[in-house]
Every structure is written in structure tokens, then in C-alpha cells.
């Protein structure tokens, strides 16, 4: 996919002539901006880039990227991308989906895409609401959420997208947010560098129907306390002056204060190749507003990475092995089959 001889292009050249149609103030603008900033730096020829989306606010994304693109049908971008990658492995494919598109109507395709491990990138914009249909709860909305379709509050238990993807044996699982451009850019780059299906959950504010859903993670006043930025090889610390850390007590994560006697040596060192610990980190998922006793900060960054052969290469290897064994297909031999008889 990396193509060093690719003709360079600028972020500006990724902007299309189509008017961007998201609501003013929507988090999608920032994500678009970061993608347009990062992609020219990846060394991929522009004609080899394809954006594919389903339906939803996020799914308008391809119209604003001057690359190849397809705005498909609800939930199916994953399946479409699978077929494209299987036949055109050299393309750089970016899937844009949302919590409704990718986890509800298209949830089945998402998990299967991840387990198969096609080498492509899935950007799931999670705004915990249905925006395009004007404000119903989504599969990531918290229990009790009052929306147009749930005037008495939702009784649905929400998905934890990171845990779901780990459960589907995804080989790259990360989380970022619209309001942290630098972090988002870095994660997009890492997702692209990973060979395999890269899943990036991006917290995205829908200022019209679910404003402030991620406020505690994005606002200056609370961000440092409520977020945990993971870096492999480094201890898990957070807090205004990184004075707080995470320690593992058996399999139980506990918050310790470095200014109150805890030692940096006791802290959990993040290892993004550790599947078991990734599973524990995925469960740092309590409601920050509930103020429970076991409250943990929300992790951002790469939870887990794994090197596993990608689907399209295994598929091609089979074609090559059969061709090596039998030779390139001879159509006349195929038409003739094994057994023939002649009538004279």
C-alpha cells in the first residue's frame, strides 16, 4: 500500500467541490479535517485511496474526500469493502461508519470483517445517538437515555464497542476523539500503518441531538482526570499533573495516587500486545457521571495490536498454489471436463 513514488498531494487537494452538509458545530468537521491532514502524509497515491461508507451523518464523509468513494447502504460498507479489498488488495481502503451503521444494522458485518482481518481501516464515529433520523437512541446510548423514541428512557443495555471488537478478534483496536486533533491524527496514522483490519472508535459530538455526550472527556476542566492516554511501554498515568496511576491488583485495576505514597514502579505499564490486559482496559467503561466508588478514567489510544495474516493475502495464496499445481486455467479443458464421448 505504501507507495513512495506516489505523486504528492496536499490536504487542500483532498477537498471536493461538494458543500459540506453537517450541522454547524458537529464533531464530524474535525474528523474530516484530521483525515485530510494525515492522508497526504501517508505516501499513498491518491487514486489508490477509497472511502466507503454506509448511511448516517458520518457516512456523508466520502463526498468530501477527493478520492474514490462510495456512499452505500445502511450497515453494508464493511461488506462492500471486503469485496473490494479481496479483488484489489493494493488499494488503501477507509471505512467510515457510525454507532448505528456499524454496530446496529451493520453489526454483523463489522465483527466478521474484523475476524477475517482484511487490511483496511474502520473509522467508527460514535456519537451515541441517531443523528440523521433526528434523535433516537443508538446501541451505544447509555441505559435510561431519554430520546424521541424513548420518552421514558431507554431500557437497552449499550454495546461497549472496544470490548466487542476485541471479542471479534480484531487485530488493531483503538479509541480517539474529535476534540483532540493531535491524538486523532496520530491514531489514524497508526491505524494505517497496521497491516490488518484497524478499528478506531472516535468519540464524536452530535451537538444537535446529543450535545455534550463526551464532555467530561473533552472539556479542559475534566479531561485530565477522566481520560487515560495509553502509550505502549509507558505507565498508565492521568490526572492534572499525571499524579494518578493505575495499578493492577491481581486482575483488578485500582487507581493510586503517586503523591500519596504510591510508587511509579508499581504502575501498570501499558503493553498494546497484551490481549488479556487489553480486555481489562476495554472494561474501563463506567459512567463518569455516576461517580461510583470504582470509577476509572476512560482509556484513549491503542488498546491492542496483533500481527495476523490478512484475509486477501491468504485468499491469493490459495489461487497461486492452485495455479502452481495445475497451471493457469485452460478454458477449453474446463469446457471439456473430465469425461467426454463422441457421436459421429
Amino acid at each position: 500500500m505504501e507507495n513512495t513514488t506516489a505523486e504528492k498531494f496536499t490536504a487542500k487537494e483532498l477537498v471536493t467541490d461538494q458543500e459540506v452538509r453537517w450541522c454547524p458545530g458537529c464533531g464530524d468537521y474535525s474528523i474530516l479535517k484530521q483525515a485530510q491532514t494525515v492522508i497526504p502524509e501517508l505516501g499513498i497515491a491518491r487514486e489508490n485511496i477509497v472511502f466507503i461508507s454506509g448511511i448516517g451523518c458520518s457516512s456523508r464523509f466520502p463526498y468530501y474526500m477527493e478520492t474514490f468513494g462510495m456512499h452505500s447502504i445502511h450497515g453494508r460498507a464493511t461488506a462492500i469493502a471486503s469485496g473490494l479489498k479481496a479483488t484489489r488488495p493494493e488499494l488503501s481502503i477507509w471505512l467510515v461508519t457510525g454507532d448505528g451503521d456499524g454496530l446496529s444494522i451493520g453489526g454483523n458485518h463489522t465483527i466478521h470483517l474484523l475476524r477475517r482481518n482484511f487490511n483496511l481501516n474502520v473509522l467508527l464515529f460514535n456519537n451515541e445517538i441517531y443523528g440523521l433520523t433526528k434523535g433516537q437512541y443508538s446501541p451505544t446510548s447509555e441505559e435510561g437515555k431519554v430520546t424521541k423514541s424513548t420518552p421514558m428512557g431507554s431500557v437497552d443495555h449499550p454495546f461497549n464497542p472496544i470490548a466487542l471488537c476485541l471479542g471479534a478478534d480484531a487485530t488493531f483496536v483503538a479509541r480517539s476523539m474529535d476534540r483532540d486533533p493531535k491524538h486523532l491524527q496520530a491514531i489514524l496514522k497508526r491505524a494505517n500503518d497496521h497491516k490488518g483490519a484497524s478499528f478506531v472508535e472516535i468519540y464524536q459530538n452530535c451537538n444537535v441531538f446529543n450535545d455534550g455526550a463526551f464532555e467530561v472527556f473533552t472539556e479542559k476542566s475534566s479531561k485530565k482526570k477522566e481520560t487515560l492516554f495509553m502509550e505502549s511501554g509507558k505507565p498508565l498515568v492521568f490526572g492534572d499533573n499525571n499524579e494518578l496511576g493505575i495499578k493492577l491488583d491481581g486482575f483488578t485495576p485500582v487507581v493510586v495516587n503517586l503523591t500519596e505514597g504510591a510508587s511509579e514502579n508499581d504502575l501498570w505499564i501499558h503493553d498494546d500486545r497484551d490481549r488479556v490486559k487489553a480486555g481489562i482496559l476495554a472494561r474501563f467503561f463506567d459512567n463518569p457521571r455516576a461517580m461510583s466508588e470504582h470509577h476509572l478514567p476512560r482509556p484513549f489510544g491503542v488498546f491492542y495490536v496483533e500481527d495476523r495474516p490478512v484475509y486477501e493475502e491468504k485468499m491469493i495464496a490459495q489461487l497461486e498454489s492452485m495455479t502452481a499445481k495445475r497451471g493457469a486455467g485452460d478454458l477449453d479443458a474446463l469446457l471439456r471436463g473430465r469425461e467426454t464421448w463422441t457421436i459421429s
Partner: protein
Amino acid sequence: MAESHEIPIFALQLRALFIMAQQQEVIDNVIIKFAGDSGDGMQLTGTQFTNTAAMLGNDLSTFPDFPAEIRAPQGTLAGVSGFQLHFGSVEIFTPGDFCDVLVAMNAAALKANLRNIRKGGTIIVNIDGFDAKNLRLAGYGDVNPLENGSVDNFNVVKMDVTKMTRAALDGSGLGVKEIDRAKNMFVLGYLYWMYNRSMDHTIKFIQEKFDKKPDIRDANLKVLSAGYNFGETREEATSRFSIGPAKIAPGTYRNMMGNQAVAIGLIAAAQKAGLQLFYGTYPITPASDILHELSRHKNFNVKTFQAEDEIAGICSAIGAAFGGALAVTGSSGPGIALKTEAMGLALMLELPLVIVNVQRGGPSTGLPTKTEQSDLLQAVYGRNGESPIPVIAAATPSDCFYMAYEACRLAIDFMTPVMLLTDGYIANGAEPWMFPKAADLPEIKVNFAKYVEGEKFLPYKRNEKLSRPWAIPGTKGLEHRIGGIEKQHETGNISYEAANHEFMVAMREDKVEKIADYIPEIKPEVGTDKGKLLVLGWGSTYGAIKSAVLQAREKGIDVTFAHIRYIRPFPKNLGEFLKNYDQVLIPEMNRGQLIKMIRDKYLIPAIALNKVQGLPFSAEEILSRIESLSK
């Protein structure tokens, strides 16, 4: 009988020649059904007999009748597996209506097929399969149908196949289980004797198949001969029959099944077009064999993708089409229902895509292993919005090859999804096929769009076929976006403009209608350009209608047969053509679907003949309607 297998074969053959000269009856066609428990090897027996008939120059047609349930209990009706073969020295168009000979390995096989034997036909029974237990499992209770008069109208040949197989292999050192597995060879040997066929082909087959297991090989050969010898030495007089070669067009033939023909047709089209073939699908009866066949030919640059569901099957194919592959999805009714939204997308994207529907009995799960033609209206009309998709249908097992090829040609030429209809009857049925040479297949031209310096690329600009350019990712300068939202003429940009929408709806319809200029006109298959009665068919009713019309014409009835392969659009001359006949009869395995389209479009009072039993028409059923209309 005990000594029979000790007589040298050449001596028996000499004697056979002698008997033959005295007793052989020459007939021109026969229908044999092999029926038994799933474990009795009836499919193999049928296939062997079929291949021998083919080698001897007979025309033929076959149909397997698989048990409705996987691993149904032994000896029950649900576990009966059958194989029907119709062969002759005359032209054969169908696997046949009523069998002349039924081989029943057990009571359930008799019960399942008793209704389908011609009066006076022969029933060959394995009496070992009629013991108390088998009678009970077949639902006969303690009444033996062989003794209560149920089979009085037939010529019954009783043999204890199990006992004689065991006797033949006495001292072979094989276990009882292995010995019993050779039972089908005894029956096959006997039928070879009965129809005076050479066993060479099957002997060769056994030698090759059990090359590495000499004891099994010898056992099968021995039992095969024992069956043949049993015919020779049987005391009761049984007639033997002789069926000469058919007068079929000279050439080299192979046997071809419908699903296999679809698969090979797709590969041929991809090869001729110079494209990789992508098949995205989900297993479903009776379409899965297309996937199985394609997955065996990866050295033809064939990629098969068993998706997580039907929707992913078609959507992966749409992705592949966007990337420039010859993309195909296949299914049957329930799966097609799930794919319909994505079909609408493909038609909006105007990408080439072939959708194969191997129809089965519906609605819902319906009759998965049975045949029907009841998805026609779904194919033509069954999507949201004004959504024209070309629909074509295969007539016979080998015609599936040509129609699959044609579906690919139309999809690529017109940048459109195309629906190919077959059904369980022709998908599993087989017939001899004078296969073409690759070089003789029509060209399929692919012109991927290229960037023209200084020109703005218009993804929805159309050519003389109203077809848009196929601009695939990786082509510099052609970056563009497509989607399911209505698009502006030529630019392909999103457009909600009222007049543009109406224009585009009409444009997509005109494009599909335009196909009529590029497909053959309709003409009689049998009969005359004008006449009293036209029988108009589509899909797998071809064989039954053709047989019926030929028989009717022999009786002096003025009747013509024409067959529609292109359903949307219809052949250009169809309206004029229909007016040349006083009456039009349309037989269909549904409640009348093509007839609705014909009445709607041409305003003629066509007459329906419908059958919705999960079974194909018999020629007799069509013939009797022709006769009643001609009175």
C-alpha cells in the same frame, strides 16, 4: 444361484448373445428410477448407468431426487434418495414423467415412488428391504405392499440383493458393513444385463476409484458381475431390452448439470472478458453447488467469498464490481429477498453485477429441495422504487451455461445488475452437452475508463447503449464518488431536484429497455410462424413443453412452441409474434406470473396452465391441455 458367480464371464457372455438373439425387445426410450436409502448409493448407481448410456450414444436427461432431510433415519420416507434417468435412441428433453422401471431398495423407496410408475412398468425390489422393520419405518405397518395387491399392476422382479451380495463376497475377508455397501453394484449389474449394456465403463470407474483399496475394488467388481450373472441365470423369464444410439448431432459431448453450467459459464465470461471472477455468496439450497464448483477453479483467477450472510454476499460482490472484477452473487428465494436492497444500490451505482437465483418452492423457507418458478415477479418488480433490472432465464441444464455467459455480457455492456433465473429442477438435472470451443464464444469487451487530459471526468455520462463508464479505483485522475442517493445526470453528484429525478428514473429504464436491441428475437422452437395455438414457456418448463408440443403435432394438432429466455426486456418482436396465433397457452410452475406480464404488456387473453407442487410439469399434463384447447 449359488454357483452362478463361479461361471466364467466369457461363457456367460456367449450365452447372453444367444439369449439376446431370441429375447431382445428393441425400444426407443426408457425411464429408470433408482431409489433407496441415502446410504444405498443410488446417486452413484444412477450416474454410472447414465455415463454408460451416454458413451453408447443415447440421448438422455437425468434428475437426482435428494432426501428432504439430512441424516433422516434409515428406512424412512424422509431418507429416500432417488435418481431418475431418461434415455433413448430418440431425442430426450426431460428426465421423464412416469418411470418404466423402478429400483426400490427398501419399502420406503417403493412407497415414495409408487405413484410415479407407469402402469405395467417394472419394479425391481430388494426383498431384504421389506422386512418387518423396514415396513414399519416406511409407514406400511405390518402390511407388505408386495403381497397385498398394491403392485399387481406392475411386473415385479424380486431379489434378495443383500443375501446375494453377501454370497458373492463370501470368503472375501471383508466385514458385513463393507460387503453391504456393495449392494448397489449388484443392482447396477442386473440393469446392465437387462438393458444389454457393456459394463466396461463402470469396471474402469471402479478400478480407478478404488485404485488404492484392492479388496474393495475387487469386491465391487465381483458384485457387479454377480448382478449381471443373476440376470443370465434367473429362472423366471425377464425380457431384455435393446436401445440403439440416438440420432443426435455429431460432435463431442459431456454431461452437464445446471449449477455446474452456471459456474462454468461465469468462468468462461470472466476469461473472455479478461477479468477476475468474484463470487460473493452464502450457502443455500439449491444454489450452493455453484459456490462449490467455482471454489474448485481458483487457477482461473476465481475468488469465492463465503460471506457471513446473504446481504454481505451481494455487497461484497458490489465492492468487487466497483474494483473492476466480474462480480456475481447467487442464492435462492429467501436469500434473494435479503439481497433486494443491495440490488437497488447496484442499479443506482450502475455497476455490472450478476445475481443468480436458483429458484425453489416458496414463500419463506417453503420447499427448499423442490422446484418452482415463483420468483419471477420478485425478480422483475421486487424492489423499492422504480428499479428496472434485466432478467433472463435458462431453459435447460446446459442452457445455464449460455445464459450465465449472457448475463455477464449484458451486465458489462450495460453497466447494470442482471438477474439470471434458473431453478432446482435444471440446477440439479443433467443432460449431454456438445460443449463449445472457447474461441467460438462471443467476445465480451471491457473498456475501463481512462483519464483524458484537461477533461472533467463525468461518471454518469452515457454512451450509445446509455451505459456509463466503468471507472475503477487506481485510475489516476478519475477520483469520483458514487452512492445510492439520486444523482445528477452526467456529474453523478447528489441531486434532489424534481425534474432530474424523473429524468434519471426514465433514463435507467430506457437503458434496460435498450437491451432489446442487443438480444435475439423470439422465434418458434417447434412449429410454424402462424397458427392456432402457441405454447409460450420460460425457464425450466422448456423440456416438458417441447415434448408435449412434438407429441401433439404428431397427432396432427396445429400447435407451436416458443420459449422466452429474455424476460426483461422481452424480445423486441414478442408483441407482433404473439398476434400470429389464435390462442396463447402459458404453462408455469407458479400461480401465473409470466402471464401477468404478457397480459399487461400486450393485452392478449393468454391462457394459464399452472402447477405449484414443487414438481416440474409432466409432458402429459401439458399435452392434455393442448388437446383440450384444440378441440
